[in-house]
């Protein structure tokens, strides 16, 4: 089938959206941006195509009675099992790379002890992996770098303590290895991994083993279907470094504007808070950008700021918002310099303020900055759409809603759970339109 792909290579995450001819989104994929942009784009696209396969599975399994009405939970389990397979594969790679990097030229007499420690760390990591991907499990993030990284550090500190080995060694081996590991694309085929995941799923759903063949056949059929990448458009911060020709690149502003318009056709104002920039965009009823403003050459108050804070508090990004929502007191925070975030936090803690109150203050500070940029772009008009990664953060959303109400009154505020994909969605829409335009031109002549 024909597919239109939009890739948004952001400063922190890379997103891809796959669309069919009818402008329906059939797949979304996301990965962390990394030094190898091609890999980031490729991985995001693979993830989106994978997600599209699941979309197809759902269609083809819809009528399979053998699943006993448990299609949703079956597919959810399959996704988790697939993720686990992926994780284990990369973990094995990480172990190998770490072991190779724990070489005597650097660690001298401690090398052997370090190898032992590494073996132990990975033993524990492998052991705990399935639990991390169990239903309802609380993961720090969905990216290998983050999950493996945070667990490695925690387990590593324990093991280093037990082995009386400097923790810095353990840390360093990881730091040396992770770039290589995350920049390698698995050479194993998708279907092999999926089939293994399916085996796992049938273990979880052992009462359905009789249905095995009835399920495997349509899955296999969906897997065999070719997804043709008819037209790809790239956008985002890193777009200029994508191996695409000029026609296949669009400005991120236009993509965000169009993406928001596609999700909510009545959108007039769009706010996007990404990793290192904040954009306020005004669009006309056709989704065309009329005006935009971005933060200047200081990255204060952008998404990355939250990342620093989360690190400082030893929390996952998605845990920040919920914690901040527990706040009961207002704490005014004025500096949003990302790098000083940690210092500010410590300062406040030492003054005896509660973590959740400080966090709420920090979120409000970020949104205040965004409000200024919005105001600079011409203010907020009805309807307002909030996009970008930070839209996933409940505390940021709460602060935003409050400030909009105080300053602009009651407006319709749209926030889509998939808002992080807005730029990619815009790009995919441009891809679809490019083909239409080509077709129209061909027809016209």
């Amino acid at each position, binding site marked *: 089938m024909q597919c239109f792909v939009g890739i948004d290579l952001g*400063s922190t995450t890379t997103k891809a959206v796959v669309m069919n001819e009818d402008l329906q989104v059939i797949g979304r994929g996301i990965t962390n*941006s*990394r*030094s*190898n*942009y091609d890999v980031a784009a490729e991985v995001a696209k693979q993830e989106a195509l994978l997600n599209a396969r699941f979309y197809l599975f759902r269609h083809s399994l819809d009528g399979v009675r053998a699943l006993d009405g448990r299609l949703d939970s079956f597919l959810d389990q399959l996704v988790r099992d697939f993720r686990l397979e992926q994780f284990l594969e990369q973990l094995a790679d990480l172990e190998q790379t770490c072991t190779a990097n724990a070489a005597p030229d650097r660690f001298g007499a401690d090398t052997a002890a370090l190898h032992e420690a590494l073996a132990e760390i990975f033993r524990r990591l492998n052991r705990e992996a399935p639990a991390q991907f169990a239903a309802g499990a609380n993961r720090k993030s969905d990216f290998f770098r983050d999950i493996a990284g945070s667990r490695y550090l925690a387990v590593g500190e324990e093991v280093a303590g037990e082995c009386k080995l400097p923790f*810095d060694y353990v*840390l*360093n081996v990881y*730091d*040396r*290895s*992770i*770039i290589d590991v995350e920049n390698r694309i698995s050479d194993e085929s998708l279907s092999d991994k999926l089939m293994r995941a399916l085996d796992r799923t049938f273990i979880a759903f052992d009462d359905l083993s009789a249905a095995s063949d009835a399920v495997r056949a349509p899955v296999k059929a969906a897997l065999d279907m070719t997804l043709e990448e008819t037209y790809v458009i790239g956008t985002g*911060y890193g777009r200029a*470094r994508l191996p695409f020709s000029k026609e296949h690149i669009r400005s991120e502003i236009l993509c965000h504007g169009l993406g928001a318009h596609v999700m909510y056709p009545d959108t007039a104002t769009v706010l996007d808070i990404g990793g*290192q920039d904040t954009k306020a965009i005004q669009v006309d009823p056709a989704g065309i950008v009329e005006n935009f403003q971005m933060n200047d*050459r*200081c*990255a204060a108050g*952008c998404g*990355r700021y939250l990342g620093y804070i989360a690190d*400082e*508090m*030893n929390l996952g990004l998605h845990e920040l918002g919920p914690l901040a929502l527990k706040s009961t007191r207002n704490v005014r925070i004025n*500096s949003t*310099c*990302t*790098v*000083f975030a*940690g*210092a500010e936090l*410590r300062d406040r803690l*030492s003054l005896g303020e509660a973590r959740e109150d400080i966090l709420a203050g920090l979120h409000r500070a970020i949104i205040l900055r965004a409000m200024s940029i919005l105001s600079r772009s011409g203010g907020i008009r009805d309807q307002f759409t909030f996009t970008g990664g930070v839209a996933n953060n409940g505390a940021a959303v709460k602060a935003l809603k409050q400030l909009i109400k105080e300053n602009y009154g009651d407006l319709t505020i749209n926030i889509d759970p998939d808002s992080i994909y807005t730029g990619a969605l815009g790009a995919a829409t441009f891809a679809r339109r490019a083909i239409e335009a080509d077709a129209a031109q061909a027809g016209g002549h």
Partner: protein
Amino acid sequence: MQTTAGIDVGSGAIKGVLFQSQGGEKPEWLSKRVERIRRRDPMELARQCFDEMLAEAGLMEDDIDYVSTTGEGENIEFRTGHFYSMTTHARGAIYLQPETRAAMDVGALHGRAIRVDERGKVLTYKMTSQCASGSGQFLENIARYLGVALDEVGALSQQADDPEAVSSICAVLAETDVINMVSRGISTQNILKGIHTSMADRLVKLLKSTRVDEGVVLVTGGLANDSGLVATMAERMVAQKMNLTLQSHPDSIYAGAIGAALWGAFRHQKLADLDALPKAS
């Protein structure tokens, strides 16, 4: 004879020393410790550091005549007195290298250039501003990203052959710059050297604005351990025809704590002379 403790609560690490001296003169080491904070509570860590030093020296808390804090240690409850960082780094630098005419303290978040006289008196100083570009923390993040241990940074930077300048002044955007460089295949050595160069430029600028014009400049603080930064600063100083000798000292990281301990002894002596001793703890 006084036994005094100096505790330097930094944003990256806690440093502590114990000294025996006569009003800050003829000091003798009893003990030293450095503890990376790594998201732990600095106040608890400071206490722990103090206790460990006492244990190592075989002393009791009551044996200590004066506990002085410096850095962010104003709130430590077991202190006798507090001195501000530049006061202590200046004194510490003179202790470590009596020829010092300026101390260049480079820590996790700030850089400070402090001009001193031979007695450890601060003459002028200059600090980096509120924007955290080019601090130790930033270097540490980059090093981790590049998979380099902190103690390797120096050597690697000195192997650079074609350093790549970091264009952003913002530490956050500079991180993205670095990722970009990696993606363009720039070597780790050249990236590190580029960062060192931009940091060194800022630091030398600070130094120059204190108008120190001759003698030894001692690098203190955690980044004194980074031979690459020290070398790059020295290069920049030569390039700018500054008639100064840049040095580092293996105990440079303790400069603040040393200064605090010595000023504590000085103060204790003075108060004893005035018969106005406050009770310790």
